């Protein structure tokens, strides 16, 4: 009797997975051709990408860089890009009408900007934060010029006020508000009566100054960055205050904040810029006239502060009520609990919204071209009005768009990095 039962004695070695499931083919099957619909979509997408690149690569790659006018480009080869316009006008696109011999000033300001934001973006370098604090004054002095001392006096005054406030609290008073009011009064006295003679004196002793450049000369990306960066820096604290004001249980303050936020959010930025350029003279004492760039910066700041306030309010609303109650039960005052408990968490939740507002603000700086300031978009039409470059579109627009894209995309990437870094829960 033969035993027909079969028992395997040795384990079979695992066979290789089918070729259709691994490697390149497997990846293709899973990601691109998993179903009929997907296959069709893939083919359509590839077709689309190919025809885009088919036109774009020869156009961009063969582009002319050193012709004198668009006419010359078209005579050489009408089917490729004419980047000569960028070669001829890149200084204008970057600096506007800034005097050519002073180009080093905006350039240096930009380099310092990169250095100044490093301590804010990366906590590792926080010990260089002092540079971020002196940067605004430095930038104003470099860009507009004038006497070095008239800018430094602002810093001296503010330092004086802060030190006064701190020492008042440490030594004599327990009440923040009274100390703040006193410090404010003394600082005001300093600025009203002492600063001007002091600046005059310093100018005589040690004259340091740069040639003055007026605001209407600012243009190009320098202008976008001036308006954008100032707006971003200034709108953040104002936005926080507005958000707190809106959440406040003091009805008058709440009403003012709600009214402000809803008004600003209800009208387009353009109308506000028109108010800044046309109507502001009505609201100020007769005869006053202040810098147009400053007016625009103020309007842009107020505009994005209102949006910022709403974003932060969202973050505040997202916090459980227990956090407020717990911090109150620990005996923290309102500002202590805001600073130590509420705001860090609320701001963390609202990082994406905050960065989106920043990006929006930076993009909105192009709107100043409509009140005839020379930002890149405004300059593009100025350049196209030139006989030599009349009829050029894509080269300019692509270049400007790319610049904005780099800045905005960089900001959004940083926000995603920050979100990942601050994530405490899964």
């Amino acid at each position, binding site marked *: 009797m033969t035993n027909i039962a079969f028992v395997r004695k040795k384990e079979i070695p695992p066979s290789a997975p089918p070729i259709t499931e691994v490697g390149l083919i497997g990846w293709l099957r899973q990601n691109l051709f998993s179903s009929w619909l997907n296959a069709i979509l893939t083919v359509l997408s590839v077709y689309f990408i190919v025809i885009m690149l088919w036109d774009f690569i020869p156009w961009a790659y063969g582009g002319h860089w050193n012709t004198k006018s668009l006419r010359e480009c078209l005579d050489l080869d009408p089917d490729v890009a004419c980047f000569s316009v960028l070669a001829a006008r890149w200084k204008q696109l970057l600096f506007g009408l800034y005097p050519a011999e002073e180009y080093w000033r905006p350039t240096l300001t930009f380099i310092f900007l990169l250095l100044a934001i490093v301590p804010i973006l990366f906590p590792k370098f926080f010990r260089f934060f002092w540079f971020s604090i002196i940067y605004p004054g430095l930038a104003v002095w470099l860009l507009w010029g004038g006497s070095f001392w008239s800018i430094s006096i602002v810093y001296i005054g503010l330092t004086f006020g802060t030190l006064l406030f701190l020492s008042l609290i440490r030594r004599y008073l327990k009440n923040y508000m009274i100390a703040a009011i006193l410090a404010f009064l003394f600082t005001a006295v300093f600025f009203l009566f002492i600063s001007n003679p002091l600046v005059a004196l310093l100018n005589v002793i040690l004259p340091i100054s740069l040639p003055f450049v007026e605001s209407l000369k600012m243009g190009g990306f320098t202008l976008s960055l001036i308006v954008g960066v100032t707006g971003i820096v200034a709108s953040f604290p104002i936005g926080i205050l507005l958000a707190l004001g809106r959440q406040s249980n003091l009805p008058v303050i709440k009403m003012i904040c709600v009214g402000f936020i809803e008004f600003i959010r209800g009208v*387009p930025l353009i*109308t506000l810029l028109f108010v800044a350029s046309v109507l502001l003279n009505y609201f100020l004492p007769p005869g006053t006239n202040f810098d147009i760039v400053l007016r625009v910066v103020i309007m842009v700041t107020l505009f994005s502060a209102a949006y910022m306030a709403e974003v932060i309010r969202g973050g505040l609303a997202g916090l459980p009520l227990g956090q407020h109650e717990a911090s109150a039960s620990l005996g923290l005052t309102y500002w202590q609990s805001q600073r130590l408990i509420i705001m860090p968490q609320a701001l963390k939740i609202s990082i994406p919204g905050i960065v989106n507002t920043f990006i929006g603000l930076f993009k909105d700086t192009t709107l100043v071209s409509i009140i005839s300031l020379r930002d890149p978009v405004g300059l593009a039409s100025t350049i196209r009005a030139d006989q030599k470059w009349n009829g050029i579109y894509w080269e300019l627009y692509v270049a400007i768009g790319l610049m904005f894209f780099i800045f905005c*995309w960089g900001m959004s990437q940083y926000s995603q990095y920050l979100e990942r870094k601050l994530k405490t829960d899964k």
Partner: protein
Amino acid sequence: MSSPTLPPSESFKFSMLLSDTRYRGMSLQVITFIIFMAVFFWLVDNTIKNLALLDKDVSFNFLWLRAGYDINQRLIPYTNDSTHGMAALVGILNTLLVAFVGCIIATILGLFVGILRLSKNWIVAKLMSAYIEGFRNVPILLWIVMVFALLTEFTPAPRAFKGAEPEATMLFFESVAITNRGTYFPAPVLAEGAYWLLLCFGLSIVAAIYFIRYANKQKKDTGKSLPTFWVSSLVIVFPTLILYFAMGQPVSLEYPYLKGFNFKDGIHLRNSFLALTLALAFYTSAFIAEIVRAGIMAVSKGQSEAAASLGLRPNKIMSLIILPQALRIIVPPLISNYLNLTKNSSLAIAVGYMDVRGTLGGITLNQTGRELESMLLLMGFYLAVSLLISSFINYFNRSFQIVVR
């Protein structure tokens, strides 16, 4: 029993207004209010002084004066003999038209892109995220001028359609002409009896709505679901179609045709309108796509797994479980993006489209010199629109939010 002794009441000191938490809030508010009113009156006072210096007054009478300028796109009758008020109204309608059409296109595109962005297909997902990042990170003003340049520079002139062997041809069976002066579509012409057709169409829609309500009630009562989509589509389409042929086709299309160097008849959409609408729609669709994606991803995976374990089919899971929950998250930011689109439409000036900012806040303002009044009216209009929309958002939030505790 001893009564609890109260702490000795402190006598009121003036400094307590600032230091005591009982009074501090109040005194803070009073100070703020005084400062606010002071600033307010300072501004009003300055305005009055400035107006007196310029020998101007505040009056809205200019709205009833002859405007004297033409508007190339108008939805209501308007000539240059009409009043400034009419010009403002034409502008308002133009703004609303751009906003309405733009919102529809942006929603469709945004839904499409947002869903495809979640696709498992690698190349499609990457393409869609390139679309989103591209539109979101470049200023809208640049997109508007770029689309305008595309429409005016890369489309044939009307005369290219001329001749036996024209350089350019009309699309869709000789019905749509894309030219550098705008795009021409066939226009519907209503003959006698067309109103009956419209009435019939309206009634069928009402009937379909009633049927859907009935079907929902049936489902709630018995658990049986009726083929709602098919039945309501048939109810809407068939009676109108039958009536259309029975009455001898009372609605016909008027095709645009070339006459001289331009197209005649049909609906003419100007490039300014198209550029503005399309650019706004593309730009906003990128934001909507992200909202849609976030909304769908916010519905936790457990929901779809639970639904699957109850035996629901994938399309039922989508329509009954995922979408109702995702919509609750999607709709409020979606509407606020509509609002953004409406406000961004004020960039019409970049392509010369006559929206309310172009008429009331542009030519009227310059002609009459009434900056203050025009800007007030203009801001009032935008404020009204945005308050209307935000009150709708609040209403939506109140009625659809999940009730907790």
